[in-house]
């Protein structure tokens, strides 16, 4: 009965009520969306490195090594020698080690040079291997295998010719246009940076850099046919990804690689490096969450002030209700229920906004970071948030309800105003 009264009362003031609900919805959507984004990105990051025990690069800090080797973000300052790679691969504790070479790009997408071991061993989330959508893995010297996002955004098909540029920006300076490549394979989507990468063989990377000294093209024009196959043995790579026969060897091996006397190397644990990264990001995230919480508080406050502002106009209405038998407590409940209903509708709408927001942001995140945002049904965390917000709203609603109570007591049964 009271519920019906409260509902009809709200409907009567539709437009102002709607604005308040809208503002609550936006702020709640923001909070929930940020939280889900955070969770999803964390998961996505973890999935990308799930099959790798160690990443080894030239000596440096863990986070940059992680970022450039796995996520293709940033640059390596140094390369490491092929010899070092061979030596460590041979270690009996190593199950497999995949060498990778980075540094070139094509229209903003990174080129990854690697061996066929990459297709054989690299696994991502839940032990999934990389699969072909069409074509085959690289075979010939100038074969390229492209990720699903590259294929989609650049609209490439098989047999597309591509020219690789030296350097990583989309406006890279020098092109290896004397040695074009051909797309022979397109990969299925993985939801990882693999989708944004163009894969070629290590030999191909060596081939296009023949005669290049210090990153500048050679002064002689090279005829592709003249390239001697023996020149193509890779001399250096950017990093290698390691999987061990048993996780127990992890720390030991890491220590040994770091202490390797023949070359300065750093072996990192992707999970640990990730945690460090998140610690840094954590401060940023926390402040974002704090801001959204304050915005929620602000919209709840505007709800309360809306109710208070109309209080005077409603004195008549409340007195009429008192005159037909409603007690002052009833008046209190009426106002309280109104506020709570508005709050609740706002929160529900907030859920909808959250998903709309995530859907809108998802392609951007995928473009920039190669990560997929998986939308999930609301879980316990969301419900706890909602509970907190509703509790806050309900407590704040006591204030206008109490005002109404006092007014109706004072006005008595006779309508004033």
């Amino acid at each position, binding site marked *: 009965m009271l519920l019906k*009264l409260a509902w009809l009362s709200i409907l009567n003031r539709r437009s102002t009520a709607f604005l308040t609900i809208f503002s609550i919805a936006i702020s709640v959507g923001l909070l929930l969306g940020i939280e889900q984004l955070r969770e999803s990105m964390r998961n996505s990051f973890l999935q990308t490195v799930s099959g790798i025990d160690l990443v080894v690069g030239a000596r440096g800090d863990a986070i940059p090594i992680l970022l450039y080797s796995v996520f293709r973000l940033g640059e390596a300052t140094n390369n490491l020698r092929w010899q070092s790679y061979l030596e460590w691969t041979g270690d009996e504790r190593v199950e497999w080690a995949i060498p990778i070479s980075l540094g070139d790009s094509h229209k903003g997408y990174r080129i990854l040079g690697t061996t066929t071991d990459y297709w054989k061993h690299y696994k991502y989330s839940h032990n999934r291997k990389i699969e072909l959508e069409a074509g085959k893995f690289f075979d010939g010297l100038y074969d390229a295998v492209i990720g699903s996002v590259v294929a989609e955004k650049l609209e490439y098909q098989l047999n597309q010719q591509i020219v690789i540029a030296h350097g990583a920006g989309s406006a890279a300076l020098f092109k290896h246009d004397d040695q074009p490549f051909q797309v022979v394979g397109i990969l299925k989507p993985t939801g990882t940076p693999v989708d944004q990468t163009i894969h070629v063989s290590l030999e191909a990377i060596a081939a296009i850099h023949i005669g290049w000294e210090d990153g500048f093209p050679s002064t002689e024009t090279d005829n592709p046919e003249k390239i001697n196959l023996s020149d193509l043995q890779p001399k250096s790579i950017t990093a290698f990804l390691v999987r061990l026969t048993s996780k127990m060897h992890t720390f030991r091996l890491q220590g040994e690689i770091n202490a390797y006397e023949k070359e300065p190397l750093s072996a990192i644990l992707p999970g640990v490096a990730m945690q460090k990264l998140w610690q840094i990001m954590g401060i940023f995230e926390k402040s974002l969450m704090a801001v959204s919480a304050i915005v929620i508080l602000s919209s709840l406050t505007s709800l309360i002030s809306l109710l208070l502002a109309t209080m005077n106009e409603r004195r008549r209405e409340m007195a009429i209700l008192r005159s*037909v*038998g409603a007690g002052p407590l*009833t008046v209190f409940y009426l106002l309280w229920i109104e506020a709570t209903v508005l709050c609740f509708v706002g929160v529900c709408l907030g859920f909808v906004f959250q998903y709309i927001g995530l859907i809108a942001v998802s392609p951007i995140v995928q473009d920039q970071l190669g990560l997929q945002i998986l939308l999930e049904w609301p879980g316990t965390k969301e419900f706890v948030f909602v509970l907190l917000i509703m509790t806050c709203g309900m407590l704040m609603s006591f204030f206008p309800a109490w005002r109404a109570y006092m007014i109706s007591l004072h006005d008595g049964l*006779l309508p004033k105003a």
Partner: protein
Amino acid sequence: MDHISFLFQQFNLIPYLNLIENVLLPCRFSRLRYQNVGSDEAGLKDEACRLLNLLGLEPEKFSHLTTQKLSVGQQQRVAAARALVGNPKLILADEPTSALDPENRLAFLELIFKQCSKNQTTLIMVSHDTSLSAQFDRVIDLDVLNQANGF
């Protein structure tokens, strides 16, 4: 309010409820009056319609209107129906006719009187309009009651 109803000078109605809901308000807050009218929602609605009909407001014609669209006279009649619903023992009316046209004042009072006598309801009304006093059983001058007022 089991036994008493109020009838104010104007603005008696809740703007966001329809006519029938306005009339039935006392039944929502008084079990006795609810029972006096009927045992369920359908019964209540019927009684509200009956009262509205008696007061010259056919529900079929008027019930879709919001209270703001009614004229003052019509609003007062809805308020009267509300005052009568559930057979209260006493109706306290505060100048209920002063907002009405002079031609309609008597008619309005007659409608109420008819219902009151049928249900044995006592009507106590305050008014400055002495022309109405002839309709009532007892008339008391406020000065007589107001012994404390020496001025």
